[in-house]
């Protein structure tokens, strides 16, 4: 399974929660599969999906799922200690780990080589870290949502992309409809 298939499988499970989605193809794919006002699409700023999600989870009570990638977590590696030390039990970080920088042409990341993001997250102090295979992602996401405990999911999947259109929605529109959902 590749990332877009993982997103298609988990979309029905996450659609009623706040979702902060990573820049590039992940946002474009989620937008195509199941656009929701509860989705915050990142149009730029690689690496900050987990930080935005954590800030959002700490500021209010609704459940927040950040959909991140292995490359983006490597870009903002300092995020894992911050997450570990500022526990928000309404926060789930889903790292779709396909071992590559998908949006830029599938260049390999270190997470696909010797570096284990699962072990890094654990070493940073994250208490509930679950590594799973792509096929298990829906079940693991359901369990994480039911657990009411901050969870880091490292979902291993294959590298590869499908053709999707870019998001043409204005950033302020994305943000405004998202904030209305947060407040509703």
């Amino acid at each position: 399974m590749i990332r877009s298939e993982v997103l298609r499988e988990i979309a029905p499970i996450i659609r009623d929660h706040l979702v902060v989605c990573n820049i590039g193809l992940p946002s474009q794919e989620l937008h195509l599969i199941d656009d929701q006002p509860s989705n915050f699409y990142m149009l730029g700023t690689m690496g900050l999906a987990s930080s935005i999600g954590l800030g959002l989870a700490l500021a209010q009570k609704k459940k927040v799922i950040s959909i991140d990638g292995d490359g983006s977590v490597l870009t903002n590696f300092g995020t894992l200690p911050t997450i570990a030390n500022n526990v928000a039990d309404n926060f789930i970080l889903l790292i779709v780990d396909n071992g590559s920088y998908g949006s830029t042409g599938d260049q390999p990341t270190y997470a696909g080589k010797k570096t284990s993001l699962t072990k890094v997250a654990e070493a940073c102090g994250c208490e509930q870290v679950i590594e799973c295979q792509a096929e298990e992602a829906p079940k693991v996401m359901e369990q994480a949502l039911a657990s009411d405990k901050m969870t880091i999911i490292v979902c291993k999947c294959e590298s590869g992309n499908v053709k999707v259109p870019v998001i043409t929605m204005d950033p302020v529109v994305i943000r405004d409809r998202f904030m209305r959902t947060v407040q509703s």
Partner: protein
Amino acid sequence: MSVSEKIVSDFVANDIEFVTTVPCKQLAGVIDAIDSNDSIYHIPSNKEDEGMGLCAGAWMGGKRPAIIMQNTAIGVTINTLVTLTQYYRMPLPMLISYRGELGEPVACQVEMAVHTKALLAQLNIPTYHFHEEKDADELDTILKHTFMCNKPVAILTDASFWKGY
């Protein structure tokens, strides 16, 4: 009231409840005051762009944020300021230690000081410079202005303002 306490009291009066910090020697007093204030959630960041991400999330979640950092951070946060804070029109007061100004003992700090205002001007970021203690009287108005216009706003605080290093 010390200048650090005054700054934090203006933050609280403007409903700022979520503050991220990356330390600077000059900001140690204000960071301590933030940390010991019960109405503010203090979340230290490992890097300033990470902190701006946290602030963006907190603001969308209904809490007014602020970031406290050194001017060297302008160099690491330009992409975030432009593609997140400005692009999505989000407010962000940035209390910045203006290292490399008169009295600076570390020569390397001057290298970033000479670019600080030019970079902020290039980014169209409203910029205020606190040089004397009385300049902080304007902080309350600057914070109101920031949350009125939904922009990142820079408050540069130099060594003279903090009365030395």
